[in-house]
Each structure stands twice: as structure tokens, then as C-alpha cells.
């Protein structure tokens, strides 16, 4: 399905100078500035394989084929059993000719890769389960095994590797300037480093479309523009003549939302205003949940609102009661919205609950910025206390805490887990900030002209976009983007037709907002709430108790039989029916006990010596 394969990493000329002699020869001119290289060797192509091996394989293949043909011819004459036997033999590496298969069976899959595609734990079918159940379980297990195996096997097709930057022996990678990198890499990659000098309309916020092809810029003083940034093709440029707080692409590059001074506006890619949504006022930050088609907005009035973009309806409006909401991020793993507050807390929200799912205290000062990892594992926050903290958001536990002398104003995590933090006018990029050992220095650093207002990694590209007071800077950050893309999900090279097709499919597969919760796998779990709880919820949803005991109302009777007295009589007949039942039961029990006691007493009496006068003894 990898229709458009993209070359990732950097061409061979830009490899480390110490690599091979041949490389050194070719790159002698640019020796001084060659910092970019590939971590692993380029993937092996079939033509690159050693001659011997290929020959061997070919020989085997040919022999195999010939045998196959033979067997095919003979197959008609063979009985079914024989044929099966043959096959078995072949799989065990034995051929009729007596030769053994050096690679018997299917090609082995490395365990790591298998783990990558594992879904849940295997279930051991206990002995003594019923046949039917055993069948279902085994079949489903086989199915998941197959799926896992196949996926792991097909992982081979993800050929591209991410590059990285490596300095000389005593050279920090963060001292390498963007100009050097741009010169060192090929022309197309080099052209990804550029500056847009937009000094007039204030600090810029930015957003890349999900394919990574389109860039949206929003100047605080009303300048909104969308660019096909790789071709530098300007799609539209308008000035909304109002303060622009935030901008966001919607599900495709055909539409984008702009949070303006008062209301939320939606424009199409040619700059035509499609909607002005007055229900969403004073919006400060926005997040788009692509699989739910939800636009989440956080407003200055403390409201978190969700807009269903597919139907244009407000799904939820939650008064957070946390004051002005100007720090917002989404967890791509479970579509939970994270909000940062001036009292140092971060709250997690779903549209289904009026209270935060989780509230965690992260900083001693206000939270300035936060971002969440693509896999939903890590959350990175920065606060007014000038600290940068990494949290394991699954366990809500802090992992690392860094002290940045200037404090980070904007944070962004790339698809590959690189962290960018903007401090004043300097953009720093950290590698392995989340998972590994605590870092002491950034991976890259770059100074832009003005104070940074927004940062964002471009998906599927090694590019970091920085919006600042003096315009926009596109930085090359090797190893930030995901080299392999899923064309069914997001295809950077898709045509208009493909996009349209994708749009329809995505809409059909739209996830309902009710399914948003901390655990995205909730849907596959059995709801084991008690009957009482369910009943309570039902009563809440319906508005009355459907199981409530109805009050007895005597039937209307004619000929004076429905007089007040008779009605009362009839009522009394059924009055306290439930209580009567209870009483009847308890009395019955007591009576039985009594009976038993009497009987046992009788037996005791009988058991002892019986005298003539025993008949006069009182029983019980």
C-alpha cells in the first residue's frame, strides 16, 4: 500500500567522512560540514546482495520450480493422502530427491517485531472447557496470531529509516547551524530550511496539515495564510482584520479554523469564510481530533467546547471553572484533551464528563505549555517555575524534571519523539528527552529573529516550524519525522481524488465522541456495572423510574360499587402487599423452626426410657 515511496534520510554523499574511503573521496569538498548521516546501513536491495548467495538461491529456486512442476503434473494421479504427505515432507525440508531444505518452513520473524504488533495477552484455554467455547477461543486465538504474524512480516515493507545528526568527536550537535546543514544535504532537503520575514502582523502561530504538505500561519494581528510549503505555493492569504488567537487545520487541507477576537471562524483553503460560529466565543486555543472529527476549543471564559465538524453541532460545552484556558494539548492516543492552568495543574478532559478525568499538580507556578507524545505515553510540561517536566501519562508519574534557565514557552513533540522547546528567541530540540537517561544538553538549537510564539514539527518530514514575532522559520531537524507513512491513513502524496476517497472513508469510520475516555480500549470490555448502578443511570437518562412500583388504583365500577368506602376496602386488600410477603415468609420460617424443635424434642423423649407416665408429659 505504499503507493508513493519517499526517500528518507540523506544521500550517500553526505555521510560521515570517516565512513568509507570511497565516500571520503566523493565528499572531500564538503568534508568540513558533513554532519548528517544515516544511522543504519541503507536497506539491502536485491541487486546489492552478494553474488554467491543470489546464485545459490537461484539455483535452488530453479530446482524447486522444476520439481514443483513435476509434482504438479503428478498431482492428478496422486491420492489425496499421498499429496499431503509429500507436502509435509517438503515443509520438513525433505524432498523426493533426498535433498534437504536449508530454510525449512516460513521465514522466522524477530521477536521484537512480533512484540510490536502484539495485541493483548494470549489466553490459555483451560482444560475442561466446553467444546463450543474451546472452539471459539482457539479460533479467535489463531486469528489474532495470524494477524500478528502477518503484520510483523509486512513490517518488512517499511523500508525507510530515520536519519540523525552526528557531530565530530568533540563537537556538539547543537552548535551546528542550520545553514551548514542546509548546505550539506541535497537541494530538496536544503530547501526545507527557509525564513519568512513577516514583520508587520505580529507573532505567528502555525499548524501543519496532517499530511505535512500544507502550512497554516496566523499572525496575531490578523494575517492568515496557507502555503503548500514544500513547493512554496501560496494557497491563500487574507487579513481577517481582527486579533487571531489560534489557527488549526480541520480534517483535510480544504478547511481551517481561525480563533479570532470574538468568535470562531472557518475558512476554506482559498480564504473564503465558510462559517462564523458564534457559539464559540473568545477561543484561545484549539485542537482537532482527526478520528472523531471534533474541534476542541478552550476559551478565555473557561469553557472547553467540542464542535463536531462533520455535522456542525456542538457536542459538549464544559465549564472548567479553571479560569482562562490558554494552554492546551491533545493526547493522540486516546483523544483526551489536556489543559494547563495558572495554578500549576494539568487537567485531562473528555467531552463526556463535566469534571476533569484527571487533575495533576505539575508545577509550582502556572503551566506555560504542554504537549503529549504520539503514543500517549509521555506528557511534557513547562511552567513558570522554569522547569520542564516529563510525565508518564499512563501512570501519571513524573519521569524527569529539567531546569531551563529561561523556561520554555512553547513545546512540541515530533512523531519520532524529539522534543522542541522554545525559550525566548531560541528554539532547542532534545532527543530522547522522554524515554532514556536525563539529558543535559540539547540535540539542536537555533536562534530565530523574534520571540517564539508557536512551534510545531511537520509530520513525515524532518522539519520543525517556528512561528515568531518576525515571521516564520522552517528548521531542518534530522530524525524528527516518521519516515514511513500509512497511505490509507495519511498520504502526503495523495491526489485530489485520493483525498476525496479518503474523506469518505474517514467519515464512515468516524469514532463517536462518546467513546473518548482515558482507556481507548474500553469498547472491547464487558461493562460489569451492577444492576443498581445501571438502573440509576437509566433513570437519569429517561427521566423517570420505569421499574417503579405503580400505585394501586381501583377500577371504576358501576351501580354504586365504586363508593368511597368500597374503594377504600379494595385498596386495603392490596395495601402493604410487599410487607405482607415479608411477614408471611418470616412467620413461616419461625413456624417451621418451632415444628422442628417440637419434633426433635419428641424424638429425644422417645429416645430416652419410656415410662408409662410419659404420655402425660407436655411436649415443647
Amino acid at each position: 500500500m505504499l503507493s508513493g515511496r519517499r526517500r528518507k534520510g540523506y544521500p550517500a554523499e553526505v555521510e560521515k567522512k570517516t565512513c568509507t574511503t570511497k565516500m571520503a573521496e566523493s565528499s572531500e569538498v564538503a568534508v568540513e560540514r558533513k554532519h548528517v548521516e544515516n544511522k543504519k546501513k541503507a536497506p539491502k536491495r536485491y541487486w546489492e546482495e552478494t553474488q554467491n548467495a543470489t546464485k545459490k538461491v537461484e539455483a535452488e529456486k530453479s530446482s524447486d520450480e522444476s520439481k514443483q512442476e513435476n509434482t504438479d503434473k503428478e498431482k492428478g494421479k496422486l491420492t489425496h493422502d499421498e499429496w499431503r504427505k509429500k507436502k509435509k515432507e517438503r515443509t520438513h525440508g525433505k524432498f523426493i530427491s533426498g535433498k534437504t531444505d536449508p530454510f525449512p518452513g516460513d521465514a522466522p520473524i524477530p521477536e521484537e517485531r512480533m512484540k510490536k504488533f502484539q495485541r493483548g495477552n494470549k489466553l490459555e484455554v483451560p482444560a475442561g472447557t466446553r467444546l463450543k467455547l474451546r472452539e471459539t477461543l482457539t479460533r479467535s486465538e489463531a486469528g489474532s496470531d495470524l494477524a500478528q504474524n502477518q503484520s510483523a512480516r509486512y513490517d518488512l515493507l517499511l523500508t525507510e529509516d530515520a536519519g540523525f545528526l552526528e557531530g565530530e568527536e568533540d563537537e556538539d550537535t547543537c552548535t551546528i547551524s542550520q545553514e551548514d546543514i542546509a548546505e550539506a544535504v541535497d537541494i530538496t532537503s536544503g530547501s526545507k530550511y527557509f525564513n519568512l520575514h513577516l514583520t508587520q502582523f505580529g507573532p505567528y502561530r502555525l499548524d501543519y496539515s496532517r499530511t505535512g504538505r500544507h502550512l497554516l500561519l496566523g499572525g496575531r494581528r490578523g494575517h492568515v495564510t496557507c502555503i503548500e510549503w514544500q513547493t512554496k505555493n501560496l494557497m491563500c492569504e487574507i487579513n481577517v482584520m481582527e486579533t487571531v488567537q489560534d489557527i488549526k487545520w480541520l480534517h483535510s487541507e480544504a478547511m481551517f479554523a481561525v480563533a479570532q477576537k470574538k468568535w470562531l471562524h472557518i475558512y476554506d483553503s482559498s480564504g473564503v469564510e465558510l462559517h462564523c460560529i458564534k457559539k464559540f466565543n473568545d477561543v484561545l486555543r484549539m485542537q482537532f481530533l482527526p478520528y472523531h472529527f471534533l474541534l476542541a476549543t478552550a476559551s478565555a471564559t473557561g469553557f472547553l467546547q467540542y464542535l463536531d465538524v462533520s455535522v456542525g453541532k456542538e457536542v459538549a460545552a464544559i465549564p472548567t471553572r479553571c479560569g482562562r484556558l490558554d494552554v492546551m494539548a491533545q493526547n493522540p492516543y486516546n483523544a483526551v484533551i489536556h489543559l494547563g492552568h495558572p495554578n500549576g495543574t494539568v487537567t485531562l478532559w473528555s467531552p463526556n464528563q463535566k469534571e476533569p478525568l484527571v487533575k495533576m499538580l505539575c508545577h509550582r507556578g502556572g503551566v506555560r505549555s504542554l504537549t503529549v507524545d504520539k503514543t500517549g505515553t509521555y506528557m511534557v510540561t513547562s511552567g513558570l517555575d522554569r522547569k520542564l517536566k516529563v510525565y508518564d501519562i499512563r501512570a501519571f508519574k513524573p519521569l524527569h524534571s529539567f531546569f531551563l534557565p529561561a523556561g520554555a514557552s512553547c513545546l512540541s513533540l515530533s512523531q519520532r519523539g524529539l522534543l522542541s522547546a522554545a525559550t525566548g528567541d531560541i528554539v532547542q530540540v532534545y532527543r530522547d528527552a522522554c524515554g532514556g537517561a536525563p539529558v543535559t544538553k540539547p540535540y539542536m538549537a537555533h536562534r530565530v529573529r523574534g520571540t517564539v510564539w508557536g512551534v510545531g514539527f511537520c509530520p513525515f518530514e524532518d522539519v520543525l516550524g517556528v512561528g515568531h514575532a518576525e515571521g516564520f522559520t522552517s528548521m531542518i531537524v534530522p530524525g524528527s519525522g516518521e519516515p514511513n507513512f500509512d497511505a490509507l491513513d495519511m498520504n502526503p502524496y495523495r491526489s485530489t481524488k485520493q483525498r476525496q476517497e479518503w474523506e469518505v472513508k474517514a467519515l464512515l469510520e468516524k469514532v463517536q465522541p462518546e467513546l473518548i475516555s482515558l482507556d481507548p480500549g474500553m469498547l472491547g470490555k464487558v461493562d460489569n456495572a451492577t444492576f443498581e448502578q445501571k438502573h440509576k443511570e437509566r433513570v437519569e437518562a429517561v427521566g423517570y423510574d420505569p421499574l417503579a412500583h405503580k400505585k394501586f388504583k381501583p377500577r371504576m365500577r358501576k351501580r354504586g360499587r365504586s363508593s368511597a368506602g368500597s374503594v377504600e376496602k379494595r385498596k386495603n386488600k392490596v395495601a402493604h402487599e410487599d410487607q405482607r410477603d415479608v411477614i408471611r415468609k418470616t412467620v413461616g420460617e419461625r413456624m417451621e423452626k418451632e415444628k422442628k424443635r417440637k419434633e426433635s424434642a419428641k424424638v429425644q423423649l422417645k429416645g430416652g426410657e419410656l415410662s408409662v407416665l410419659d404420655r402425660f408429659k407436655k411436649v415443647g
Partner: protein
Amino acid sequence: SLFFSPSRSKSSVEAAPAVMAAEDNDEELSSLEDENVISASEDEEGSEDERKHTKLLEAISSLGGRRRMKQTERSEASLQVSEFSVAADGAGEKVELSDLLGTMEKTPGAPNKTKKQLKNLQNRKDTLELPLSKQETEKVFIIIIIYVPTKPNNLSFQVILPLFREDEKRGEKLARTPLEQEIFSLLHSNSQPIHDPVLTPVEEASIKAMSLEEAKIRRAELQKARALQSYYEAKARRESKIKSKLYHRVQKKAKRRDFLKQFEEMVKTDPDAALEELKRMELSRMQERMTLKHQNSGKWAKAKAIMAKYDHSARKAMQEQLEINKDLTQKLAVPSEDEDEEKNGDEEAGALPDFVNDPEPILDPVNPWMRGKLSKEEPEPEVEASTEARDEDLEVQQQQEEEEEEENEEEKLLREFERKRKLREDEDDDLVPVSAEDGSKITDNNDEDKDDKVDEDDKDEEEEEEEEEEAEEVVSEFNSLFNRLMKSNTTPAVPDQNEGEELLDEGLVRVQTMEDLEALRKDRTNEANQEASVPATDTPTAPESASEPPNKKKRRRKEIDLKKVLTKQATVVKVPLAPTVLEEEEEEEVHTEQAAIIKEAFAGDDVISDFLKDKRKQEEAGRPKVVDLTLPGWGEWGGLGLKPSKNKRRKFRKKVAPPPPRQDKKLPAVIISEKRDASVAAHQVSQLPFPFQNPTQFESCVRTPIGQTWNTQTTVRKLTAPRVVTKMGAIIEPMSREDLVPKQKSNEAKRGAAILLEEKRERGKKKGSGGKRALQQKKKKMQKQKKTKE
């Protein structure tokens, strides 16, 4: 003339003199005359004749009798009959102006001017307008007074509305005898306005001395004033006719604003009037509180309430009504001067509303059962409140004493006056100086006035200042008085409460802040827990922050380190890119500034303690409450001061199973909501489907998605392959007629396997004949072939 009745027609009236003539003659004559009359009125009917006759008879009979003045009886109203029994020539017609004015033309002496005027009058058809209401005329008058031009001339007829300015002088001059002086002083002391129309001889002289020109000027002025008045009246009338509600609303608002401004000025210039205004406001407030006005309880409001659901304006109107009510019932906020009060105010600023402290209403004070409580707390005598109350009481007493003193002074004055009068009666020509304070004040004022006469310019300003000061004093006095009054109204409640406390034998704790309230709740729950003797579940509670006052009760809280809450020592990251020097300086400055700002901003509130408090609250909310079902006096003696026994309480206390441990039990810096998300539940499987025996089996079966999005193509095909594949079977044609023919059937049956051999032959034979049959046969054969093969 006695018989002259209004019921007569013209003809009968003409006949009247004849009747009068007949009075003296015989009856016959009269009858004759009557006939004449009849003849004269030929067109009239016989019935009328009868009536006339009876009338005549009556008239004759009444000649001798007493009732001479008896009026004619009216049987029927008619056009000719006036209701008021006023006979008029041409009855039923209005007296028209033209008739009256007709004589004007005939009279030669009338001047042309008047004629013209009258003619104009004649042409006018509209009626006279109603006079304006009293208030409006007053207003107009005031406005006009303001507009009247004044003259510097002393002798000019300046209209000065409050006449009492000159009165003082005049009074002083008039008051020659001691009696008069006393009266004046008394009047002054009561500040009664003296509307004495009597002019001083000087003024009279000045009027007399007025020249013709001045008179003319004055007349012109007056005319102008009158014209202005009429203009304003007309304007007022026009405005009153405007129906626009918005207009009136705006007007009203403007008026209110003006009134406020005026009031402010009035407070400065005329404190008495201001006081009166205030009183009136207070009165209106009282009225508003008494009545149900503006409470949205009337007919109109109810109708509006129904509409309010759909109509925005109706809602607004209701809101406005409520606002008016609020405004009117609002207590007059008077700035207090007492320091104590200010302190109180400060205290109350952060405090809860007072109703929190109010005891719950005891429905039946006689019934001791209603007084009892399930769990009583130890009485804590509240000292503060009582002392405050005492202080306030003292103040009130003092105030009352002062008032009494004032009254006594006035009485003394009156008594003195009486005594002096008596003295005067004894010795007529004795001048006794006024000893009272007020009198002295007046004399002072008089002195001042004299001085004013000497040098007006210098002292005017000073006086004004003094006046202002005085006014301020008065206002402040009023304010303090008002406050005291308010206090005296409120204070009596306190001792009552105390009494109630004594009766109840329970302490009331004054709850002032939210924290106290919380503490109270906590104490209660703690008590309950202790009493229940349930092994107390350890609650992860936090210590009190340092900012909290130490004198508070120590609550059971576990110590939590800051390190635990905000763990991890921060590793300092070195940034290689040093910002440029200039910027660095700036940034550093900014940072230091920022740090300072942050320090300031976060000096008061401790983020961590706030968070912990929040967490504690959540935990408490999640914990189920112990239900106490004890009924005091049930099964044992009950009454005042008797507690239900411990055993009993233990028995009737419903213990609730402790909830499962919270998810955030071990995470001090995290609050995880324990609320169930019902929205996902709607999509979840709630009942285990058939073959599965436990949820884990089901969940493991469902865990792998089978869609294209998550799987390779082959996997999807295999996973979604149907369990049973149905294949298209053989087509069985319906039976045809030929099938039923026995011959062929037998033939074919005989041949059986020989068909194959004969096929070619048959084909050759039947090519020419019926094709259909041949085809069918062929098919059959084919089928049979298949069968044989299988």
C-alpha cells in the same frame, strides 16, 4: 305664568295667554276657549286634548289650594322636555356662540378689535384644555422662575421664590416687642418658613416710586414668563401623550439621574430638604417591603412568567421588576465613621452570610421532642457575640439618653417661655434676653447678617463654607443616627438567641469563613467516626500549610512532603546558544522582574496546599456516609438532656461498606475522577454472550480488530471468511409435457446407458424436426452423463 309648562308645543304656548284670560271667566267660557285652542291646534290628537283638559282642571283646583308651586308632572321624556325642567325657547337647540355674538354686530359702540377677536373665537372649534396637574404646574413654575431674567437693580421686581431670605431681615425689623421677638425666635428655632405677604413700607414705597418704564418692563417680563409657562405646559402635555414605553423609560432614567445629582447638591446646599428626601426614600422602602409590589406575584407578572419562556422581552420586563424591587428594598448604605464598625465590616467582607449562624427554626417550642438532636455537641459559650451585643446595647442607650436630653431641652424652652409670659404679664416693659441655645444661635445669625450688610463681599464665601460644613455635619449626624437605629433594630435578636441557647443547652459556633465551615463538618464526621467505634480507615490527608493559623484545631492528617508531591530533582540543562549580550541583559531583567512578579502573585496562596485541599474534598465526597437511624425516645426514656444510649446508636447506625481504594491513592499529586463514564457503557457489552464463561475470555476474543485499517489484506480475508460457503447447485428444470409421456420414459429407461452411443444418430435424425424437444433431451442426457461420471 303658573301654568306655563315646558311640555307645550309652540302652538299650545301660543294658546297659553288665552288660557290665562280664561282664568277669570266661567267654566263654559273656558271650555269654549278650549275649543278655540283645539281649533288652533288642529293637527293635535284627541288624547292630548284630554291631557290639556286635566291640566286645566288641576290648574283651576290649585288656584285656591296651597300647592301653588307644584310643577307639572312629567310622564314621558320627549324632545321638547328638558331634563332639568328648564324651559327655553327653542328647546333642544344649543345656545350657539353665533347667536350671542350676533348682537355684537348690531351694537355700534363695540370696537373693531374686540369684534375681530370674537370672530376668531367663533372660528375656533377645539375645547379648552384641562389644566395640568398640581405637580406639573409646580414644575413648570420652577422652570420659569429659573428662566426669568434678573436685574441688578435693587428696586427691580426680582422674583425670588423662597421668600424667607428677606423675611429674616423683615422679621428682625418687625419684632420690636419682646413677645414678637420671642415668637420670631421660636419660629426660627423651628425653622418655620414665614410666608408673610405683608410688604415693608420701604418696599411699598419702592413700588410706588416705580416709573412707567419700569412698570412696562416688568409687564413685559411677566408676559414673557407667562408665555414661557404656556409653552412649557404645552410641552408637558405633549410629552405626557407620548405612548412610547422606551421614551418614558429613558425619560425616567434621566430624571432619576437628575434627581441623584440634585440630591447630591441638595445635601451640600440644603441638608434639611435632603434629610426629608432621605426620609421619603426610607418611607418608600418601607412601603415596598410591606407590599408585594414588584415581586412578580401579580396578575401581570404571572402572565409574563408564562410568556417568559418564549418571549425575551417578557423575561426582561420581569427582571426589571425584580431589580426595581431590589433597588427599593435596599438598605441605604451610609458611610460609617466608627472604627469598630469598619472593623466589623472588614471581618464581614470575607465572612459567610449571617444566615449560616441562624438557629434552625423550632417549629414547636413547647414540644421538647422537637428540640432534641440526635448527636449533641459540647456547648461552647460564644463570648464575642454577647460582648458585641452589650456594647451595642450601651451605645443605643446612650443614644436614647441623648435624644431624651434634646427633648428635655425643648421642653425647658417652652416652659421658660411660659414663665416669661407670666412675668411679662406682671411687668410689661421688661426685655428678657433669650437664654436658650437656639436663641443665641439666632442672635448670632442676626449679628452675622448685620455684618453682612456692612461688608457682604468678604464674608459671603466664608459663610458658604460654614454652611457647607454645617450641612455635612447634619448629614453625618443623620447617618450615624440612621446607623444606630439600624443597629437597635438588629441587636435585640442576639439576646433572644442566647436565651434560646440556654434553653437548648447547646453551644452555637459562629461560622464565619468557608474554612470554619469545613472544619465544623470535619469535626462532626470525626465525632461520628469516633462514636461509631469503627476502625478508622486511614485517610490520606495532608498537613496544614504553614499559612494556616496555628490556633485552629489540629486535624488528622498525614504528613506529605513537597518532594513527594513534586518529585524529582531537576537536572539543569545547559544551553549552548548564549543569547546576544543586549538581549541577555534584557531577558535577565525580564526574568528577575518576572520572578518578582510571580513571587508576589503566589505569595498568598500555596498551590500545593490548595491542591491537597481539593483532593481531600474529593475523597470525602466519594466516601459513603454513615446513616444514623436512631430515634430518640423510642424504646427508652427520652426528653430534654437525655441521649439515646450508645448501644442503641450502634444498633441503628447503618454501616456502609467502604468503597474500593481510590485509583490515586498512591499518587499524592494526582486526582483521578472516580465517576463512571456512562456514555461508553451504552456501547459496551453488558451481558456476556453465549459460549463465554467469564469476561476475560470474551475480551481476549474481541481484542484483535478484523478491519482493513489494522490488518494486512490476507489477514482480513481470512479473518472475515464465512464459515459456511454455499455453492451454486445443479439447475433442475421444471417438468414438461414430454416428460410425462409414458412411452419415451419407458424407452429411455430401457436404453439407459446406451444413450451415449445413440446420441449422434439422434442428433442427425432430429435436426430437421422440432428443435425444442431435441434440446431438452440433449440437456437431460448431459445431466445423466454427469451423474454417471460422479
